[in-house]
């Protein structure tokens, strides 16, 4: 079994090595795009099948596969080992499954790119890192994957590195992630210190950490560890204050945005918090911080998305906003719900990104529009690309929360978790209201971008007609759209089970599967409250259904009537605030003024002075000193042979004297 399961880790790495080295060494291999695409896709597809097998033959309790001892130092004993349990297998299926579809899609999307082999190398390396992240059984293996996905993200954002803004976007992503990683390291050190004080060996495995947390072993450090892990998660999962890199990350190829910056990597922060949930359970203060930060992120990103005209920017801000929803669920202690939303979001957001990729592909091939990503130059595309248009519509409805598509169930569960978190009127009720507004705004901007792209009249020069993408790109779209439709049925709401007489079993993801690994007092309390106030719950479900349907319906009619001119009316409606939305709430400018600017000033003035006077000064003083000493002793060099000989003779004489008389 261990050998079979090791394929999950080894094959993507092997794929990356073969494609990378082969491409470097042989020009013939580099040109053979079919072979590279097949190898790359198989290196993800086979692990997907293996994980499926592991899922269906899962024995019911967590399995740990130890590969080899990695490092030992004092009490620290880290094993290279992997863990199969409900959470990691679920994440593994999402990552490799969606990953496989996106690899397949990329064969069509990246066709003819000179870096084709490089692209697949990075993509396979990413899957390898991601598998380490979610399947690793201890913090260190997890951190290996955590850094690996950060690296691959950097490489792929800057894939077209000859374009300076794209290279800068890659650097921005890397730096923002490093800040989070620093917090993660400190959290790990604190965990080690706390655990080393009570046990003989520390392997930092999740099982041990959770056990330690359950016994209250972290004590006063619980708050700090939880906060630091959350800060690390804000880096990777794009929350305030570190989210600024994600919208810029859209500089990479579109399938990369779908895979890394929507479906998988950015959800690793949510995975990690769900994995370490006992620590968060023990520090309600951090949960409150998470929920406030998440709500701010969600609402700010949603309002920013309204005013963007770049189709990928809209999706990027939408991703930030949806990640905010997931963190809100975490903040309410509803970890299972967060993972549920991770899953449904992976389906419809990957589909949306791939759809936008298909659109960009078509616009690029027309060679007539200046910016192939600007929705203002599109319009009416569904006529020309029915597969892309229809799947995009399905995913838009899913993300807007239209019943019975997947987004409805996960988003509704988040909303009701927030509402039922406490009794009476408290912070979480406010957050619930913000989330409801955000859900409505989400429906608005997603419908807007879909209407502007696919419906109405064509706004591009009609000399050439855009073409539908090849089947290798539309098949993944249809599969993902199908999953976006049915994905929600894995987590049907419990009250429905009560009505149908099936009880909690109707919610497979929470009560059939993840409840073995995630035990949350908070989630339990939420369910209790919801059960007691089932009428309110009906009302909430009705409300979120109504909000989503109304928002989509009204937006559709609005943009059908006004077309692109609708944006003008939206601008008038928001007045001065529209500028703020268009300016992305000036986060980049704020960081430029408060952090980057002062650092540059420091570098140009203080550090430069120190460099010239202290560092260079020391070096110059040494060289001057040597030169001055040399000036004194060089007088000995008269250049006269007889002088040298005299000294040699005197030396010989001295030595002889010493030998004879000494």
């Amino acid at each position, binding site marked *: 079994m261990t050998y079979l399961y090791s394929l999950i880790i080894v094959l993507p790495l092997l794929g990356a090595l073969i494609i990378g080295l082969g491409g470097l060494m042989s020009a013939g291999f580099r040109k053979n795009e079919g072979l590279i695409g097949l190898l790359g896709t198989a290196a993800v597809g086979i692990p997907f099948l293996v994980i499926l097998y592991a899922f269906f033959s899962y024995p019911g309790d967590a399995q740990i596969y130890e590969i080899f001892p990695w490092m030992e130092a004092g009490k620290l004993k880290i094993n290279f080992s992997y863990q199969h349990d409900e959470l990691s297998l679920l994440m593994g299926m999402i990552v490799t499954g969606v990953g496989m579809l996106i690899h397949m899609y990329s064969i069509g999307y990246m066709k003819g790119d000179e870096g084709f082999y490089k692209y697949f190398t990075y993509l396979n390396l990413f899957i390898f890192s991601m598998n380490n992240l979610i399947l690793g059984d201890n913090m260190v293996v997890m951190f290996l994957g955590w850094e690996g996905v950060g690296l691959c993200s950097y490489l792929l954002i800057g894939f077209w590195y000859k374009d300076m803004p794209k290279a800068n976007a890659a650097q921005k992503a890397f730096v923002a992630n490093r800040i989070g990683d620093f917090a993660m390291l400190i959290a790990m050190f604190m965990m080690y210190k706390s655990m080393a004080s009570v046990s003989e060996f520390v392997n930092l495995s999740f099982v041990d950490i959770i056990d330690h947390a359950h016994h209250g072993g972290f004590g006063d450090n619980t708050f700090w560890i939880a906060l630091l892990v959350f800060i690390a998660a804000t880096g990777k999962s794009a929350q305030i204050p570190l989210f600024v890199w994600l919208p810029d990350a859209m500089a990479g190829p579109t399938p990369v945005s779908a895979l890394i910056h929507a479906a998988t990597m950015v959800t690793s922060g949510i995975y990690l918090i769900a994995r370490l949930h006992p620590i968060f359970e023990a520090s309600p203060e951090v949960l409150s911080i998470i929920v406030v930060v998440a709500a701010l992120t969600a609402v700010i990103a949603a309002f920013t998305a309204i005013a963007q005209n770049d189709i990928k920017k809209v999706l990027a801000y939408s991703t930030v906003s949806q990640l905010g929803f997931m963190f809100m669920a975490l903040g309410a202690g509803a970890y299972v719900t967060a993972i549920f939303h991770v899953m449904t979001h992976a389906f419809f957001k990957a589909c949306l990104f791939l759809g936008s990729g298909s659109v960009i592909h078509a616009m690029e091939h027309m060679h007539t529009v200046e910016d192939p990503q600007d929705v203002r130059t599109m319009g009416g595309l569904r006529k020309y690309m029915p597969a892309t248009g229809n799947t995009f519509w399905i995913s838009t409805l899913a993300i807007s929360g239209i019943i019975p598509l997947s987004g409805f169930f996960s988003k509704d569960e988040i909303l009701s978790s927030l509402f039922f978190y406490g009794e009476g009127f408290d912070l979480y009720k406010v957050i619930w209201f913000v989330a409801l507004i955000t859900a409505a705004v989400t429906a608005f901007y997603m419908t807007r971008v879909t209407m502007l792209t696919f419906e109405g009249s064509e706004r591009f020069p009609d000399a050439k007609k855009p073409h539908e993408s090849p089947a290798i790109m539309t098949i993944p779209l249809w599969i993902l759209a199908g999953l976006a439709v049915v994905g929600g049925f894995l987590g049907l709401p419990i009250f429905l089970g009560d009505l149908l007489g099936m009880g909690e079993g109707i919610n497979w993801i929470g009560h059939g599967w993840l409840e073995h690994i995630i035990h949350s007092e908070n989630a339990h309390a939420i369910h209790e409250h919801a059960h007691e106030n089932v009428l309110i719950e009906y009302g909430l479900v009705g409300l979120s259904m109504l909000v989503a349907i109304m928002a989509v319906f009204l937006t559709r009619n609005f943009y059908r009537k006004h077309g692109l001119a609708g944006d003008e009316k939206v601008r008038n409606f928001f007045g001065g605030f529209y500028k703020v939305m268009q300016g992305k709430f000036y986060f980049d400018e704020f960081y430029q003024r408060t952090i980057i600017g002062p650092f540059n000033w420091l570098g140009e003035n203080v550090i430069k002075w120190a460099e010239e006077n202290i560092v260079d000064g020391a070096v110059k003083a040494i060289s001057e000193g040597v030169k001055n000493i040399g000036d004194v002793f*060089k*007088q000995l*060099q*008269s*250049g*006269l*042979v*007889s002088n040298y*000989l*005299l000294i040699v*003779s005197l030396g010989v004489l001295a030595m002889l004297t010493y030998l004879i008389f000494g």
Partner: protein
Amino acid sequence: MEFLEPNAYTYLAIAVVMFALGAVGVMIRRNGIVVFMCIELMLNAVNLSLIAFSKMHAVSGAFEEGVGPNPGANGSMLVFFVMCVAAAEAVVGLSIIIALFRNRLDIDINNVNIFKW
């Protein structure tokens, strides 16, 4: 006149005098040719001392009596090496002096001080 009878020490004394003359000559003379001759004088002083030591350590009839090679032969052997090397050195040295003369029309070695700082 027993004490006037030359023995090994006599030759060693002559060698010392020759060496000292050579060394002093190299140091104080400025004409390149003379300096060169003084070097030769020093080499020959060494040769003379080697001959003297060879005679001093010789064992008569060593070969016939089966004692092995005459230990005194080592010194005589070395003399031939020194003479060979001195011959080669004379060629190089004189060539340098000729080259020097061609370049500067002067063989005063105190004027050849390009090694001076």
